[in-house]
């Protein structure tokens, strides 16, 4: 190591240390030390001078149209009032707001900040991939090589589970799920996300953009896609016979036959298979919907909260590690969502009569 490199390392360490000190001083942890006694006694959270205490609302915020955004703001105020002063303090109007929930009516189309973010992610994906694949040549350029790398990696992933023949059939959906989830997670790490929004007073009340995974609708939509895809493949591969996985007619017949011949153990096993295992299988298909939804939603929301809290506690420095972690989480969640869909699809395509007896 030359003396130049040594000096550089030293400077970097000093720089990081300075950031750390600045972070401590401006963050919530530092603020505890100069918080006034009154505030302490009032039980208020210490806040740094730049970053206010983060507020996380589970529902996505409505951004457009404007009337809906204002309605949402009213709702937020009413909700906060209820939290602070109790339900009795609310006026009738405010109570109606709280009862109606964040979205007025169930059939108005709202452009939420998560939806905007998902559009941004989709646009980026399409730009990247369509530009990379445009005029695809045998001798690829840089962008094409990158796109090919991604597509080939995903194809190998699919091939590894369902084999070469069926891989081409499953690949588009699996790859799109993977890319969509990952891009949506990663795009949320852009620093513009917490920085742009609609101000009320001195802080941003509604952000223009928010990672789409933190909106329950996005994981739920993906889970529905995954569910429909799996069931469709089951029916396509096995025909109407796919239903015998849930309604185990063979077991019922065998059970009744056993019962007639007074073989009670066999009858018990087969009837149990019909009345219990079949419905359990059907139930597990539905439960996947929920587990898919909440796994992705939980991970993305936790990531968002972690970023916000780390930036609140020790700005500048704590977020760095969290960002690294979030990159990994985004990739892993995408892999899990796509991988589970793939595995469920592979299971659905296997005839199950063979495994019965």
């Amino acid at each position, binding site marked *: 190591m030359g003396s130049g490199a040594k000096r550089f390392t030293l400077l970097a360490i000093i720089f990081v240390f300075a950031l750390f000190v600045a972070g401590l001083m401006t963050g919530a942890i530092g603020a505890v030390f100069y918080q006034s006694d009154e505030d302490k006694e009032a039980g208020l959270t210490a806040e740094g001078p730049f970053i206010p205490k983060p507020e996380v609302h589970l529902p996505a915020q409505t951004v457009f149209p404007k009337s809906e955004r204002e309605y949402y703001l009213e709702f937020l105020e009413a909700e906060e009032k209820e939290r602070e002063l109790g339900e009795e303090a609310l006026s009738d109007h405010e109570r109606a707001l709280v009862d109606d929930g964040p*979205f007025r009516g*169930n059939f108005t189309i709202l452009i939420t900040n998560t939806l905007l973010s998902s*559009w941004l992610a989709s646009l980026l994906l*399409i730009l990247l991939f*369509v530009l990379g*694949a445009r005029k695809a040549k045998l001798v690829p350029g840089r962008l094409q090589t990158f796109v090919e790398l991604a*597509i080939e990696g995903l194809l190998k992933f699919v091939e590894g589970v369902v084999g070469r023949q069926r891989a081409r059939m499953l690949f588009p959906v699996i790859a799109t799920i993977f890319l969509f989830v990952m891009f949506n997670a990663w795009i949320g790490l852009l620093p513009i996300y917490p920085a742009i929004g609609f101000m009320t007073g001195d802080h941003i009340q509604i952000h223009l953009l928010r990672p789409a995974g933190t909106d329950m609708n996005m994981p*739920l*939509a993906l889970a529905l896609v995954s569910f429909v895809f799996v069931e469709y493949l089951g029916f396509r591969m096995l025909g109407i016979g796919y239903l015998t996985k849930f309604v185990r007619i063979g077991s019922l017949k065998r059970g009744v036959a056993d019962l007639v011949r007074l073989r009670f153990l066999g009858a018990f096993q087969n009837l149990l298979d019909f009345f219990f295992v079949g419905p359990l299988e059907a139930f597990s298909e539905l439960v996947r919907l929920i587990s898919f939804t909440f796994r992705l939603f939980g991970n993305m929301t936790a990531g968002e909260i972690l970023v916000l809290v780390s930036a609140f506690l020790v700005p500048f420095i704590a977020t760095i590690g969290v960002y690294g972690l979030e990159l990994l989480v985004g990739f892993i969640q995408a892999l899990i969502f796509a991988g589970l869909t793939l595995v469920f699809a592979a299971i659905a395509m296997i005839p199950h009569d063979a495994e019965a007896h």
Partner: protein
Amino acid sequence: MLETLGIHFPSLIIYLVNFVLLLGLLYLFAYKPILRIMDERADRIRDSLAAADQARAEAASSHEAIEEQLNEARREGQRLLDQAREAARRFRDEEMDRARQEAETFVSRARSDIQRERDAAIEEVRANFGDLAITAAERVLRRTLDRQAHQDLIAQVLEEGESLSRG
């Protein structure tokens, strides 16, 4: 309860439509062309590898053929050389034989010529010698013998002379 979690039916539908659109766009404009080009490339590489193998095999076999031809040519050359050497030897032998024969004919002809010359010489000598002897005898004897007696005497002398010369 669902709204508290943020579930909103129209948003859900929009997300679904978005995803399907994204899937369609990516499939049509990214996956399909890229997979096609990747397959094409794989085919191309497979073909070129096969062609290279074939070319290598062909090169090897043609190398063998050339080697074979070379060997053949070498053998042919050797054979021609041997033939030429053989022919030369035969020619030399023939020439030598002929020369020897010629020499022999020459010598024998020369010998017979010599013989003939000698015979002629002897004949002449003999003829002359008879006359000479008669003359000599006439001179010695100074007498005349009858011719028949002379001739007999001469023949006798010649006979003796001849046996002398032969002996």
